[in-house]
């Protein structure tokens, strides 16, 4: 197993973000919503206020820590939904071909033609802001890339000797898809999924920034940036820290994707002696 530096750094950053999200109640200094105190409004970063405070006197550090929960939930859950939808559609379309393939292809092209953020905006506008609608909106709009990859992999794997062999040996369609095709395309799909998670974290930030995602006063990194934009010159720490959190998480996910791609190739698995 060759573990490259990108896998280590990416994995560490992602693990850090998960850790922060899971243990937010222990890591935070104050309650991110309730502990407003106008006496400490807009304090710059210091030993007491690690990341400074906002106009309501809330601790930015605590809000960033709690924000990890929302950003990561959105990133992971929505990308999981995307991966499942995309893989199922792509795999079956590539395998069965015919009208189903045409239908899935048309749908994918439709999804690719509509900018996914605009589509997500429309869904959010219908469902109203909130975590659940965010998950639905982002989970339904970003599967086209996974679908393309799954379909293309299926088409090329279908003619592989072992898939033909499985058919000759009496495997059913579903068994071929699950035991022969899926494991062999999992590498690229996992890579796409980690990159997609990064994109979902960004999309959540964008939607919240536009006021359609997580509603204030609950902290998500995007909504924090949104609230901070008026004070970017007077209190830059309000934007810097949530921005840094987004940046590091997305960078971590991208590096993780790269690193995973290197080890998910079965050829590079070590030879047992």
């Amino acid at each position, binding site marked *: 197993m060759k573990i490259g530096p990108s896998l280590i750094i990416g994995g560490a950053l992602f693990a850090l973000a998960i850790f922060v999200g899971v243990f937010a109640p222990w890591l935070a200094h104050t309650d991110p919503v309730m502990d407003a105190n106008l006496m400490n409004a807009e304090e710059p970063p210091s030993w007491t206020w690690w990341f400074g405070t906002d106009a309501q006197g809330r601790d930015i550090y605590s809000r960033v820590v709690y924000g990890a929960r929302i950003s990561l939930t959105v990133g992971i859950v929505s990308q999981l939904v995307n991966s499942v939808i995309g893989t199922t559609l792509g795999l079956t379309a590539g395998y069965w071909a015919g009208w189903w393939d045409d239908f899935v292809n048309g749908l994918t092209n439709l999804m690719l033609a509509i900018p996914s953020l605009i589509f997500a905006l429309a869904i959010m506008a219908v469902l109203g802001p909130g975590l659940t609608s965010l998950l639905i909106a982002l989970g339904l709009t970003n599967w086209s890339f996974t679908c393309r990859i799954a379909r293309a992999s299926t088409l090329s794997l279908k003619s592989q000797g*072992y898939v033909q062999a499985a058919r*000759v*040996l009496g495997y059913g369609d579903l068994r071929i898809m699950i035991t022969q095709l899926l494991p062999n395309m999992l590498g690229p799909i996992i890579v796409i999924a980690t990159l997609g998670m990064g994109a979902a974290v960004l999309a959540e930030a964008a939607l919240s920034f536009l006021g359609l995602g997580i509603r204030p006063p609950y902290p998500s990194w995007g909504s924090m940036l949104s609230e901070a934009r008026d004070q970017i010159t007077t209190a830059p720490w309000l934007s810097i820290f949530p921005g840094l959190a987004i940046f590091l998480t997305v960078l971590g996910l991208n590096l993780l994707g790269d690193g995973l791609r290197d080890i998910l190739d079965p050829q590079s698995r070590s030879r047992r002696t």
Partner: protein
Amino acid sequence: MTGPPLIEVENLRIDLDDGSRHVAAVEGVSFRIDRGETFGLVGESGCGKSITALALIGLLRRPLSIGAGVIRFEGRELQRLPAAEQRALRGNRVAMIFQEPMTALNPVSPVGRQIAEMFVLHKGKSWREANQLAIESLVSVRVPAPERRVKDYPHQLSGGMRQRVMIAIALACGPDLLIADEPTTALDVTVQAEIIELMRNLCEERGTAILMISHDLGLVANVCRRVAVMYAGRIVEERGSNDIFRACAHPYTQGLVDSLPRLGSRAALGRSRLKEIAGVVPAIADFPQGCRFNPRCARASDICRTAVPETTRLDAGGLVRCHHHA
């Protein structure tokens, strides 16, 4: 033994239809294989041997389809069986091993699991039992240290080992017919002999019939009791393998025999060029009228260019499809 033969093919025609043209890739193919028999199908690349095998297991896919003829497995018409029943036959009663042991195994699954899957799929075993049976299968194909090998991935095995694993998978459920499509073409000559020997012994022990497909007449004649020679989609000659070198009736078979290098022939006959058959196999779309071998045949006459020769039974045993057979 009485009763229907294991597999019987009658007048099989396989159509190739890619929308713009419609041609018969295989035509008038008939043969039968009895229980425990060894039967060889020989011919150049593209003569239709592999698609005939695919037709036998009901796996022809567009643009290929069975145009006419009947395939019977133990007397039951294969094309009439429901899809689920056909699938239950595959791997269980009829198994196949392929030319490329490199690509015929799933690269992301340990080989033991791939063998065990056959027991789970066709024999309803639990994974625990199946894993145990997989180890026993590896023992039977003489893979050393099978307990450790079951956990190996295909890329960790050599070509010969992989073909052994393929044989283990194919014979796992004790099939009645093993189709071997160029089973040793991708292997070293020394490994070839071992694999052929292993395959033959295992099938003999279990009474499994072999349909061996190859371009190598010598190899097939060595393994099989009967040999059919295919040319451009038709069987041109079918003989006992003992007769085929001594007295082949069809000029194409004669050409194949003559083009084999013989050990020691240089000492006896002096340095001479290997004989070849002039010309190339015609493409499926422009098969010639009449006998399809006529453009390359030394014995060709006018009738060969107009009339398709019928299958004739030879006095010496065997069948031939030629107007001017020897």
